[in-house]
Each structure stands twice: as structure tokens, then as C-alpha cells.
């Protein structure tokens, strides 16, 4: 019970401090992050197609940026 209470207190403190977080990378320091070469997916159509090719021959699926249903391919 004490552990639970301690965890709750830590959680509340973290949440409260989170609201007060100051951005350590200022907006004017994000020019490199805004460069197109830093985008996760520059061309979503192409990324989606490559995901399709991979999932057609692999048992794994999901967590690549999309979400939904899927199965095998001929």
C-alpha cells in the first residue's frame, strides 16, 4: 500500500513538473530538424508501398507508422 502511495506521489509530481517543462531545443534552433532529409517519411506513398512489399513475405506486421488489418499475398 505504501509502495502504491509512493508511486502515485511520484507520478503526480512528474505530471505536474511535465507541465512546466521548458523546451530545451528552442524553435529557432530547429532549422536542421526541419530539413527535408530529417523527415521520417519524405514520400508516404513510397513508404507505404515498401511496407506492402515487406508484409507480403514476412509474418511480422505493424508499428511502422500505420495501423490496420492485413495478411498474406500470393
Amino acid at each position, binding site marked *: 500500500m505504501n509502495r502504491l502511495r509512493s508511486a502515485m506521489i511520484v507520478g503526480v509530481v512528474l505530471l505536474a513538473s511535465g507541465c512546466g517543462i521548458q523546451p530545451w531545443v528552442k524553435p529557432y534552433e530547429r532549422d536542421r530538424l526541419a530539413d527535408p532529409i530529417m523527415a521520417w517519411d519524405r514520400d508516404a506513398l513510397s513508404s*507505404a508501398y515498401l511496407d506492402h512489399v515487406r508484409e507480403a513475405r514476412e*509474418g*511480422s506486421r*505493424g*508499428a511502422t507508422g*500505420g*495501423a490496420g488489418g492485413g495478411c498474406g499475398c500470393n
Partner: protein
Amino acid sequence: MHRRLAQRAALALLLLVRATSADVLPDDRADLFYSKYSGGGMDITGESVLVRKKFTENFAVEGSYFVDKVSGASVDVLSNASVIKDERKQKTATVQYLNDKTTYSLSYINSTERDYISNTTHFSLSQSMFGDLTTLTLGWGHTTDTVGENNGTALAWLGHAEDSSYSVGLSQILTKNFIADVNLEVITDDGYLANPYRSIIYVDPSSTKGWGMASQVYPKTRTSTAIQGQAKYFLPWRAAVTGSYRYFHDTWDITGNTYELDYTHPLANIWILEGRLRYYQQTHAAFYANVLPFNGYQNFEARDQDLASAENTTIGAKATYAFLPDGWKMFKRGTATLDISRISYHYLDFSDFKDFQTGYVPGTEPLYHFNATVFQLYFSMFY
């Protein structure tokens, strides 16, 4: 019959806002896309068009249309004398609404083949926080499928399947040169999950050839969990390197590991060159067997090559050329992109059916491997 997994891929492009910030909608663009996949006995060509338009700074609509044409079939399908030509048409519509730091996306996807109909609804919410250093994305999707089998002369509808997906993603700016991203997705399936075009092979001493074939029997449910982490770093000479890892496990006992490394290098503000290496490995499903001791050996039986123990390696290159730097009429700029990948597949407990027909005793035939080439060419106009 090359089916519903394309729905998943289509959904990947819906999360355009997943990058570094959720408080600006992406630019208007139109894409013309051509693709070709050759390998393992199959040729697949794809043609697609995508149009995206912001009507206000807060509201955008996107639509795409994709046509896949397949000829040939993979070796496990050949074993079942399947049809060898097919076509799939997929339509996608998405609306996005931005409210302060939150982006809402709602999508509908319809995919139709002669023997497969699939409809997906997907909703996602992205929230920027902590001075836009962090973006949290929550997603939910639901798909219904109608599964059929076309034996070349007649079409039989076999059943229905449904799946639901639940995802959460966190993108984080770590330094002015470094961003990271974590995604978790759980997918649950229920219904007819087998592939009607595959068959099991079992030892049959009563047959002169020594083996027989029978239909696959799959479980009617599946739940999978995947978690991916990736990081991207801006190098001092204006280039970017990306590393990613994904862990996958499901209730069919498939465990998968994916590793990828990308390098992106611009040249003179006209070209962006990219190289990538990818390695994937998986264990087989609990009910998979290349050859069963007899038919009915276990309650679930499969010989789908996608469920076998396997590994593959990809080497890829991509070049993007920027044109119209000063714009033209309504267009601000354009790009042309060529992307080529070579994938080498190796199976650890799956063999080519043709080897059974050429006299190998079941269980002694060589393991199957093949190479595939994936070609993409597309033009993008931004306006």
C-alpha cells in the same frame, strides 16, 4: 488474391503528421507513382495517384487510387494450381483537422479484387506538447474482409474476417540534431484467416509419389504486438543517418526482428541521395510445417511460406531530383524520384514444391531461396 495487407500499407501513408510536429498540416501535393516487383515467380506492377489539398490552414483532404496487377504466383501458390493473373483496386479518402496542437485524422479505405473485398476505417489523434518537442499519436482501426477463392473457372466465397488495431507512437526531439521515435501496435484478428491458395504437404506411403496435399487449417484468431524504435541524426556535413529496430511477436508464436540503417545525402540542393540496408529474421508459426508426418497430425496445419522460419536482406538506393525551383503557375516546386531495392530471401524450413515433383523424398529437398527487385518511379508536385 494479393489482398488485404495492402490496406495496412495504405494506412501508413495516412500518418503524414507523425514526423516532428503535429501542429502544422503537411503541404499540398499531387503524386504520380509507378512500381514494379519481380521475384519468386511473380511480377507485380502498380500505378497510383495521390492528391492532397488544404482548404484552410486547419482542414485538409487527401485521396488516392491504386491499381495492382499481378502475373505469376509464388511457389506455394503454384502448388495449388491457382489463377496466375489478378488485379486489385484500392481507394483511400482521408480528412484531417487541426485544432491548436492536436491533429485529428479519419480515413476510409476500400480494396477490391475478384476474390477479396476489404473495408477499413481508421482514426488517429496527434498531440504536440512540451514546447513541440514531443508528439504523441494514438490510432485505432477496424477492418472487415470477405474472403473468396477463385479456381480459374468459378468463385466461391469462403468466409469473413475482422481485425482491430490499436497504436501509440511517441516522437521526441532530443537535441537540435537528434530525433527519436517509438511506436507500439497491437492487432487482433478474428474469422477466416487462412490463405485458400496454399496447401499442406504430408507423407503418404499409400501414394506412389510418397506424399499428398490437403487444405490448410488456421486458427480463427490472432493477436500480434510490434514495437519499433528509431532514431535520426543530422551529421555535420548536412546528411542524415537513421537507425531502427522492430520487435514482433504474436499468438501464433512468430517472433520477428527487423534492423534497418539509412543514410541520406543531399547534393547542391537539387539532388537527395539515399542508401539503405535492412535485415529481417523470423521464427515459424507454431502450426507451420514444411512436411507433416500425416494429414491431421495436428489440429492446425499450415505450409504458407510467410509463416516459415526465414530471413531476408535488402539493399536499396533512392535518388530524388528537384525541378522547378522557382515554381510554375500554381506549382511551387516538383520532384522526380527513382528508388531501387534488391531483396534476398532465404527460408530455413520451407522448400520449393517443384522439388517434390522431381523425385526428392519429402524432407530431404533443398531449402528455398530467391531474389526480388523492387523498382519505383514517381513524380511529386507541390502547390
